[in-house]
């Protein structure tokens, strides 16, 4: 199973270009409230993450994703289902 900590680090790395205000990215960082990602930006982010891990992310998970921590947990689940 993919290490959760590694996933958070990788997600923070992917999120860097989306972090227009240059805030400190942490597990609790809220994608909409703190990073200001609108629905189009979220889709752009999804594609980047999908290509980075070579997986497809179902949109059904989005209601459960508010923070980087939520995203990493969902990603970990998806990656474990694939392996």
């Amino acid at each position, binding site marked *: 199973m993919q290490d959760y900590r590694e996933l958070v680090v990788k997600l923070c790395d992917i999120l860097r270009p989306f972090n227009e205000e240059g805030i400190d990215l942490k597990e609790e960082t809220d994608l909409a409230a703190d990073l200001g990602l*609108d*629905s*189009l930006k979220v*889709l752009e982010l999804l*594609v980047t993450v999908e290509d980075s891990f*070579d*997986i*497809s*992310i*179902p*949109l*059904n998970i989005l209601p459960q994703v508010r923070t980087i921590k939520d995203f990493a947990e969902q990603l970990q689940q998806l990656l474990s289902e694939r392996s």
Partner: protein
Amino acid sequence: MSIFDKFRPVSSALQDLTNYGVETVNVVIERFISPFEAVINGRQTVLAGTNNYLGLTFDQECIRAACEALRQEGTGTTGSRMANGNYAGHIALERELAEFFSRKGAIVFSTGYVAIIGMMTALAGPGDVILIDSDCHASIYDGCRLGGAQFILFKHNDIADLEKRLRRLGKQTENTLIVVEGIYSMLGDRAMLSDITEVKKKYGACLLVDEAHSLGVLGKQGRGLAEEAGVEDDVDFIVGTFSKSLGAIGGFCVSNHPQLELIRCVSRPYIFTASPSPSVIASTRAALKILRTRPELRSRLWENARKLYQRLKDMGFVLGPEPSPIISVRLKDKGKAVASWKKLLERGVYVNMVLPPATTDGNPLLRCSVSAGHTPEQVEQICEAFASLQDVPEPAPMS
């Protein structure tokens, strides 16, 4: 905290529009003068946002059939087909649709929206996967959400992206449903159906094509994009609506799959909705007959569409990628869109204004739909109204 708190963003967006002096969601067509002219705000207005592609809403044959059905069978069915029974017209229309599409079976639904969610939720449930083009209509997104299948987007008309996603699914492609549209409702472009069917066959997935905007518009016989692209045998399910080229309301699905009949027993939107009224079924049957026997309507539609597309292009407007009965003027600024839409209405032309997030790229659209029923003078009036937009001053930015 109230259950209404979540409406604040919508309320604020509506207030923005009201501040601009427009009531886009409350346009009232006060009186019809002819099929494509009506009185709006007391002014004679050309209707260029109707989806009435073949101009059949006032066809005398359709009206006669509807009136006859009203007299013979009443105003409504007052319940679902499962509970209240089928009317002979429902069965006859299903037979005629199956014959028109050369398919083994057809199911009629109460609206196009119900048809798409009825089919999608029945076909793809928990454990299944739906792959949809990112430009698909909201009804298709709703069909994904309601059914409980995993749903994944692929980039609009990007076959490499579709294939990449199918490859990532591995064995799950066997229970994957791909959904695309014949003509996309926002920009009026076609799906790359020939390529999509090749990929679909390679990975063993099922394919559903929503021909809502392409029925009666594309193909030699008017059956839609699958016919035009010569791939009808590779499309598992075709869904469509009666509310556009057929000038009524309702929806359908046709297919060769023997399991289609089972959909009637498992599709909740089919089971628990009142069935279409007899007059609607009768006018739809008459319109389908006209669609099949008067190909000149399709020719006239395309003549009008190409003319308007070229004229708007020559004026320098940024449009969708190809001429089509849906012609969308793409703008960068919401305020400019609202001011332009208002000016068009003042010039006696009604088009659809589509604002983000309903648009595909986050920018607003002024969306025209062209009809075979538009006269050359009406097309000219639409062109002149758009030409006048070059004088619209830059408005203050909107939130």
